[in-house]
């Protein structure tokens, strides 16, 4: 789907289901650093056929959305608020990694724009290894390799993908390699400099779901605990064993079902 937001072209996947003439609640799936809507390929189409208008969005300068890239989590959250205003209703937000911080911040400080929030691969802080930042800033393919290497659990490095024939690590690396020049570095910097996660968590009033990989090396499970402890609204925490940072790719069936259950409630 292509549409214009703040005079910029925005692109997203809707599971090939048009929003036109439909009134189901809208779920917006927000990708992580250097990625795009296709990271949600195992969830978007399912949600679009299970009671939601689903929009796996390309953030500015990602995928096919027009730039420039936004440089902070707060700016990205404001962009999500603009998206809610565009549709004229509050949104169910699903965010992964950087996208989780964006969803968290939006839910914390723009309450009227958010119906529920689901966070995958999230931590109270997201420091970035300086060599990863350096490689990303230099548009070095090593950045994609590092994220792929750290993003998947030991088990899933060897694959056994529920989607026949697809390589988990191969897909992740190709996706990050496809990012526009400089975008990954900007995204990582936005993650590293964001210090508002706990403050956002304090403010949240909508239901919140955490989907967390036990073997997450990018945002280790323990870094999510302060967020979980801080949130006082209705919360669910799903711990996924033998799962890394790329939760929605490694456990697509479980993520689909947990998102549906959470948002349907």
């Amino acid at each position, binding site marked *: 789907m292509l549409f214009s937001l703040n005079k910029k072209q925005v692109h997203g996947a809707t599971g090939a289901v048009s929003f036109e003439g439909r009134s189901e609640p809208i779920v917006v799936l927000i990708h992580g650093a250097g990625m795009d809507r296709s990271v949600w390929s195992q969830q978007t*189409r399912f949600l679009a056929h299970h009671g939601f208008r689903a929009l796996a969005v390309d953030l500015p300068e990602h995928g096919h959305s027009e730039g420039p890239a936004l440089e902070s989590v707060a700016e990205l959250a404001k962009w999500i608020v603009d998206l809610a205003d565009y549709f004229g209703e509050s949104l169910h937000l699903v965010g992964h990694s950087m996208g989780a911080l964006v969803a968290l911040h939006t839910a914390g400080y723009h309450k009227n724009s958010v119906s529920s929030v689901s966070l995958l691969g999230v931590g109270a802080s997201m420091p970035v290894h300086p*060599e*990863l930042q350096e490689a990303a800033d230099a548009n070095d393919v090593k950045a994609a390799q590092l994220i792929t290497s750290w993003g998947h659990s030991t088990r899933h490095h060897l694959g056994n*993908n529920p989607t026949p024939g697809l390589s988990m690590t*191969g897909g992740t690396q190709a996706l990050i390699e496809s990012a526009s020049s400089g975008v990954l570095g900007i995204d990582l910097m936005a993650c590293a400099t964001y210090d508002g996660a706990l403050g956002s968590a304090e403010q949240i009033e909508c239901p919140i779901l955490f989907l967390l990989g036990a073997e997450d090396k990018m945002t280790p499970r323990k870094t999510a605990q302060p967020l979980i402890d801080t949130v006082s609204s209705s919360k669910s925490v799903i711990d996924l064993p033998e799962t890394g940072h790329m939760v929605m790719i490694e456990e697509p069936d479980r993520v689909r079902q947990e998102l549906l259950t959470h948002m349907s409630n």
Partner: protein
Amino acid sequence: MVEPEFRRFDTRALHAGQHPDPSTGSRAVPIHQTTSYVFDSVDHAAGLYNLETSGHIYSRISNPTVAVLEERIASLEGGVGAVCTASGMAALHLAVATLLNSGDHIVASRNIYGGAFILMNHTLPRFGITTTFVDPRDPEEFAKAIQKNTRLIFAETLGNPGIEVLDIDAVSDVAHAAGLPLCVDSTFCTPYLINPIEHGADIITHSATKFLGGHGIAIGGVVVDGGRFDWDASGKFPTLTEPYEGYHNITFTEEFGPAALSMRARAEGLKDFGACMSPANAFYLLQGVETLPLRMAKHVENTKQVIEMLDNHDAVQWIKHPDHPSHPDHDLAKRLYPKGAGAILSFGVKGGRDAGRKFIDNVSLASHLANVGDAKTLVIHPGSTTHQQMSDEDLETAGISEDLVRVSVGLEDADDICSDLSKALRASQR
């Protein structure tokens, strides 16, 4: 300095795509000799058919044993996905049929497997797809042959039977400058010798029957999706970038991003044309892939010894193998194939066609048959077998002379291979 950590090639050849079977503990990949899979519910079935959820429906579309082989080869090649097929020719057809429509055009190397040449030169034109054949050694020829309706550049990483070495980087630059993907057949190399995606290739096909399987016991093919080509930016591939009514108007690039090609190939080409790989063949081929690094290392080592023997044999007119200094691509081969440029070579027997025939009739250890990449050493005379449908002119263009004998060097003791070939060469001169 921090470095990415991935399982190495030899480990992935054994493990990628599989974990021990959770219900039985089977360590080896089980043969799922079954056609169909039980749905949890009507909603589950609908989701599978609509590409909303992942899993198996019917073994023409996907099968658990075949899926392990697909994921393993995708991993070894560094691709985003792979689709296995009934044969190597079915793999080439699947790649073409997924991307091209009637009225489209291919620019292909003229030095390719005879079956692939016939497909492109005679069969595909019946369906409105035409091909211009060019010298694979000249990237400029690829560029000059590109037309407005060209949709694919195709070549073999190592040509057949002259073992022309494709400068993958240069030809992929030509293709990408024209907004086209480069598809390479890498059957002779396997991912052990080269990963074409690292050099710019976008699609890889294999006849898995050959070195991947390695034992001459199962026919199969595979299409590997590199996942790096920007189909949307190219704007020439509506099968991937426009809604497909066959799946409720799904647009494959929008939904699946880098995996658009492999998803469409499975959802349409494999499902509708039906050239799927059998689970038993996938099992046999997996046994081969597990020892691929060991076998390929031995194949190329034996090849070096055979080249040395032939080089010193009075009955040999010429040798074609990129590891031989006389080969025009020797320097390129040293750059692209540091482990060795494969185990297929050709040579000319002094005395022409009759001497070549005598040579074939006098080998005893080597087998005379139409295959390559077996564990056993194989020989053939292409002019009278694999390439016999080609005209004299086409044979000459493809570099196939009357005296040409092709050898697929096997895994026997190298001294025994050399002894057998040497004796047959002596007999050819009587």
